[in-house]
């Protein structure tokens, strides 16, 4: 035990002797939180609209002003030429074109259905789908108003109708920052632990100091433990910094238990550190480790469900995610921070994470050779 404590002390001395690393450890989380959280958003606002109103009646203007009045749309251009509108779409000046045919008001007055034509720039498919859904919503409201006006209160009751109301729990206003923040916290802990720990071990190899440890009676498990503990502590400190920024700057509501969050992150960190040390035994230079580590981090992060729901992934990808520690911490962070989930709710994920952590650490201890 005393050996491990001495080794840990040595690690800390070594880490903080490098001035750059010492600054980076506390600087990176602050910068990451402040820059990434507001930047990563799929929120759609101010969809640029171009209107071709061939009708110019009270009815068509009513539809346009209803669109302009909604928070999602901004009427940027209105024109009579389809060519001009298409050119605007081509040049990315607008992303939706709405064409109202002539005779629109007249037909509506008679109670006949009218088609309006919408052209969307669909290069970004999900954006296009969402804008289309919003536009549909506005038109649905518009229809309802017309039906109500035309029929008057009396006839209205004759048409049975199912009304829909909705509410969003845990994040009433669908604030994107609340969604991204727990995810970024996970990435933060991952990046710090993974890169620092892996580079640290490879650096010892590069500079040859690892041989000095190899000739001492230090056991393999003692060595690996001493490599894991300092970065575990640093990772948790960074998590705390990130959380404080989240609460003070972004005012994220913290619903769950802080102790539970830190416990899960600690397990996650052990898994990540174990993997980093395991991978570092394959590399002999820092550059090589950066490359392999980078490759794994990209796959882990893209598959973790940080940007997109896990349920939309194909089955084989969901199976692979069973050994992806980032996927677990993503879920756990969101559930504990936003929903106030208790240990009962997340116990399946926690047990799985423990299993991964143990497996990776054992792999790292086994792979580590005391012979050079």
């Amino acid at each position, binding site marked *: 035990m005393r050996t491990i404590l001495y080794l840990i002390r040595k690690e800390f001395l070594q880490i903080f002797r490098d001035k750059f690393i010492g600054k*980076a450890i506390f600087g990176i989380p602050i910068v990451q939180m402040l820059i990434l959280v507001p930047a990563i958003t799929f929120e759609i606002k101010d969809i640029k609209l171009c209107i071709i109103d061939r009708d110019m009646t009270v009815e068509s203007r009513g539809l346009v002003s209803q669109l302009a009045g909604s928070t999602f749309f901004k009427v940027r251009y209105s024109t009579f030429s389809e060519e001009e509108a298409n050119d605007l779409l081509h040049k990315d000046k607008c992303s939706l074109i709405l064409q109202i045919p002539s005779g629109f008001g007249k037909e509506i007055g008679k109670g006949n259905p009218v088609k309006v034509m919408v052209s969307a720039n669909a290069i970004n*498919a999900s954006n296009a789908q969402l804008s289309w859904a919003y536009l549909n919503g506005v038109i649905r409201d518009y229809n309802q108003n*017309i039906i109500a006006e035309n029929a008057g209160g009396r006839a209205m009751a004759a048409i049975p109708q199912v009304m829909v109301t909705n509410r969003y729990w845990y994040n009433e206003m669908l604030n994107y920052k609340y969604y991204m923040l727990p995810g970024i916290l996970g990435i933060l802990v991952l990046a710090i632990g993974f890169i620092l720990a892996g580079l640290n071990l490879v650096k010892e190899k590069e500079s040859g100091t690892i041989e000095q440890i190899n000739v001492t009676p230090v056991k393999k498990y003692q060595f690996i433990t001493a490599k894991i503990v300092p970065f575990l502590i640093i990772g948790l400190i960074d998590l705390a910094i990130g959380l404080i920024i989240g609460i003070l700057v972004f005012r994220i509501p913290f619903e769950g238990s802080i102790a539970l969050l830190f416990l899960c992150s600690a397990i996650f960190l052990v898994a990540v550190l174990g993997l980093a040390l395991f991978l570092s035994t394959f590399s002999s230079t820092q550059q090589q480790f950066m490359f392999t580590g980078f490759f794994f981090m990209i796959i882990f992060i893209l598959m973790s469900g940080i940007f997109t729901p896990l349920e939309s992934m194909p089955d084989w990808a969901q199976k692979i995610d069973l050994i992806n520690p980032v996927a677990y911490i993503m879920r756990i962070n969101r559930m504990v921070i936003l929903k106030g989930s208790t240990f009962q709710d997340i116990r399946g994920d926690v047990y799985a994470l423990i299993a991964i952590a143990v497996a990776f650490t054992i792999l790292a201890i086994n792979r580590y050779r005391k012979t050079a």
Partner: protein
Amino acid sequence: MKRFFGFVKKEFLHIFRDYRTMIILFGIPAAQILLFGFVVSMDLKNARVAFLDLSRDEVTQKISDKLTSSGFFKRGETLLSYKDIDKVLRGNKTKAVIIFEKDFGRNLIRNGRATVSIIADGSEPNMATLTTNYISAIISDYNRELAGSSAGSILVQPEVRMFYNPALKGQYMFVPGVITLIMILICALMTSITITREKELGTMEALLVSPLKPVQIILGKVLPYFILSFIDLIVILVLSWLVFELPVKGSLALLLAESMLYILMSLSIGILISTVSKTMQQAIFISLVGMMLPTVLLSGFIFPIENMPEVYGWISALLPPRYFVVIIKNIMVKGTGFLYVWKETAILVAFTLAAIGLSIRNFKIRLQ
């Protein structure tokens, strides 16, 4: 000249000797293309919804069947009281709870009004918006059936035409993005690393005292990466064409020419980074934090810039990848010609010249 080719051969040997470098060169682009193509998707399918049916009659049965048979939703728990909602949503498997009010069917027939309430899990805003939108759409479908041919058919019916991407494929977003990213990664990161490595190991001195001119050394360093990035570009284009049936709509020659310009620019930035950094760690740090992160975030590759706070729009105006994404999207997806992208091209040329100029000023023949 022969001397120069010998040097280039040495550089190629350096690259091919290490399989980890090959991972970066070919593994990352392939993995990214496949992950983005098959794994990362925003589509709603089989989202689990729970039902709290306080009425349990024919109408509620019909509506819930209609929802679950749509393919978008999967039937989850059947709840008995409001108290269960929190428990179910907190478990994270269920994305929304659909509540039918008491006497739903009777209200609908007697008063002509009945209310469905949706409680969605807002901790995933995208999922929540999609879920509620789809449920509302399915229910308004049901309303239309109810109204039949009567007065309910006075409707403005919007019809949509999805320009450039009628099948709504996500690939049109990420293939240009991956190309942009890989070029920065290979050209800026790898070049800066190889040059600083020679400095750190002291072999740079050996090169400088050799009869090769400094210009030849630098050219010899970047030429292999120029060729490799070009091969990579073609691999990505072929992959996206074969796997995702994503053709280059515009002129292929123009696309390749613009890409060469971009590769040249990234290489000059890589050289610039190597002239200002002393160790490999610094070079890695500058390229990753200074180039990679902004490229992923602010080039409009995954996250549209126009949805971000305004400051980010200004910052991204200073980043070359942003212009290349515009160029490549225009040529690949919209099929526009040079007239639509000349402004962006001019900006890239300016960046290239600036980077080359700065590196020449910073380049030192002598080492301290």
